[in-house]
């Protein structure tokens, strides 16, 4: 089995099978899913259902093509977890084919082509997300607004959500609005204070809703920490780096930068920190490596949010640091008891 080769400590504990870990992570997303459903309507749940079916089908299909045991690998819940993470990350009214594309691409290209669970160098969910974000920018930018702020003043009902996902809801534009990050990104010439006063996406109701979402994922993440499924290193380093970066620029450039609190509680900050960056396969293994890896993602998130082309940078930050993870692991090997000092960095002119 592929996963047994992973040295990540949290999958090696006695009695903790892959399926148990994956199930626990799925359960830990529940508070976030509930809050998202409460704030943005049934779209998230419908997305999750579509994503789950698509993930299981594409995983089964590709396993059959690779002549691997289908039932065995479907039962480790990893495909389902990828689907859940994607269903959460995609906007609630995104058309069904976007979800299916993202999920099947994640399973087939990001995971199985590299050899299945445990062998993928990139986080499958984020690969799927990045693909649809690059390919279909319009549906991917249509987040629903909170009911009190959007023009229609009410939330999409279950049937309306279904309609938006499977057909085309003509009035969907009156329900959608820019997310706070999107709004702040496109404040154009406004300084940040007047942007927070005038832009609809940056009003208290909108910001609070994202605060709730982030708090819910923080709760789920703390549960994972408590269960010792993840360690504190990656999320702490990620959030810390994001805090330091945004704090630094907020102090020096108050009129154009947003506060650290804003950066930590909007977008996918908490979700990314606890659920995406902590993927045991594609992230770093050693504790020191995790700190560097998380900090790298945090810095990249701030850079992409502030100067990049996309409002949020979690997906690209994670993918870029996935590139670097093997190198970081190489230079942060912990010292085994009784051995010499570990390799800590490049030494010019010597290999000892």
């Amino acid at each position: 089995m592929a996963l047994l080769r992973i040295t990540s400590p949290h999958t090696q504990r006695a009695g903790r099978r892959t399926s148990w870990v994956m199930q626990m992570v799925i359960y830990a997303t529940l508070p976030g899913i509930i809050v998202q459903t409460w704030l943005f309507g049934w779209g998230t749940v419908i997305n999750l259902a579509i994503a789950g079916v698509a993930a299981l089908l594409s995983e089964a299909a590709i396993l059959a093509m690779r002549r691997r045991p289908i039932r065995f690998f479907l039962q480790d819940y990893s495909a389902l977890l990828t689907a859940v993470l994607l269903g959460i990350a995609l906007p609630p009214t995104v058309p069904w084919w976007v979800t299916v594309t993202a999920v099947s691409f994640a399973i087939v290209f990001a995971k199985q082509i590299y050899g299945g669970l445990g062998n993928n160098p990139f986080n499958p969910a984020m690969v799927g997300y990045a693909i649809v974000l690059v390919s279909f920018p319009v549906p991917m930018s249509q987040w629903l607004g909170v009911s009190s702020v959007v023009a229609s003043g009410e939330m999409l009902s279950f049937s309306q959500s279904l309609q938006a996902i499977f057909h085309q809801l003509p009035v969907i534009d009156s329900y959608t609005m820019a997310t706070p990050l999107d709004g702040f990104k496109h404040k154009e010439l406004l300084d940040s204070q007047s942007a927070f006063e005038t832009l609809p996406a940056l009003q208290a109701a909108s910001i609070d809703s994202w605060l709730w979402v982030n708090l819910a994922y923080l709760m789920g993440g703390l549960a994972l920490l408590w269960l010792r499924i993840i360690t504190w290193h990656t999320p702490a380093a990620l959030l810390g780096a994001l805090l330091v970066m945004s704090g630094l620029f907020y102090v020096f450039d108050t009129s154009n930068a947003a506060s650290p609190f804003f950066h930590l509680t909007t977008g996918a900050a908490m979700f990314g920190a606890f659920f995406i960056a902590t993927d045991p396969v594609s992230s770093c293994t050693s504790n020191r490596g995790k700190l560097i890896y998380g900090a790298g993602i945090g810095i990249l998130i701030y850079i992409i949010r502030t100067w990049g082309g996309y409002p949020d940078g979690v997906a690209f930050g994670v993918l870029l640091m996935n590139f670097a993870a093997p190198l970081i692991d190489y230079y942060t090997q912990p010292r085994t008891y009784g051995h010499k000092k570990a390799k800590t960095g490049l030494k010019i002119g010597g290999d000892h």
Partner: protein
Amino acid sequence: MSTSEETAVNLDTDDTAQDNQPSANYADIIYNGIWKNNPALVQLLGLCPMLAVTSTVVNALGLGLATLVVLVGSNIAVSLIRNYVADAVRLPAFVMIIASFTTCIELIMQAYTYELYQILGIFIPLIVTNCAILGRADAFASRNPVLPSALDGFMMGLGFMAILVALGAMRELIGQGTLFSDMQLLLGEAAIHWKWVVFDDYPNVLFVVLPPGAFIGLGLLIAGKNFLDEREKQRIAAQKAKDGPSNSKRVRVTGQVS
């Protein structure tokens, strides 16, 4: 004859030797160019234009044709001068030849297919740097008579163009849901209605239209070729096994002796 043998043979022969025997027979040249030693799928040469311009069939076909013409021309020219160029300066000489042919093609395209010329842009002059062309000039044309060299250039160019067009069709179909759009840029007014909208109301898949999609598409094509090769190998092995164990020198002590 395999390519490694071919190169080995070629390395053995002295450059100044007056060998008028082609190093491979014509069937081998054709098979090598189209399939076995395909410049795009096996040698992976000329990746830069291949990944950059194959977003539609017409772009791929335009660049493929241009490369084909340059490849045939340069192979013929290199083969003609192969006995008169000193070894030390052969590469500069080949590059000069390739560059002149590329300039000709560029001017021709500018004259007759101006819009396509503008779409392909820098990638037409960049044909000079296409390793497939210099590679064939050095590995084949500089050691073979004119006729085999011309055939080799044609077949290599055809193999390259076939993959280019396949990749272009794949990316156009998945990326834009159409096939053969804008063919009039290359083939004139007659092709103006060739555009085939395969999927109506199709959302453009930008990822496939952009160069990253070409990497994945090319990967799939290479995987497909390896799959076919593997199946062919298995078929031959099965055929051999079926044809009879008569060649086997081992004495079988168990099982059925057929």
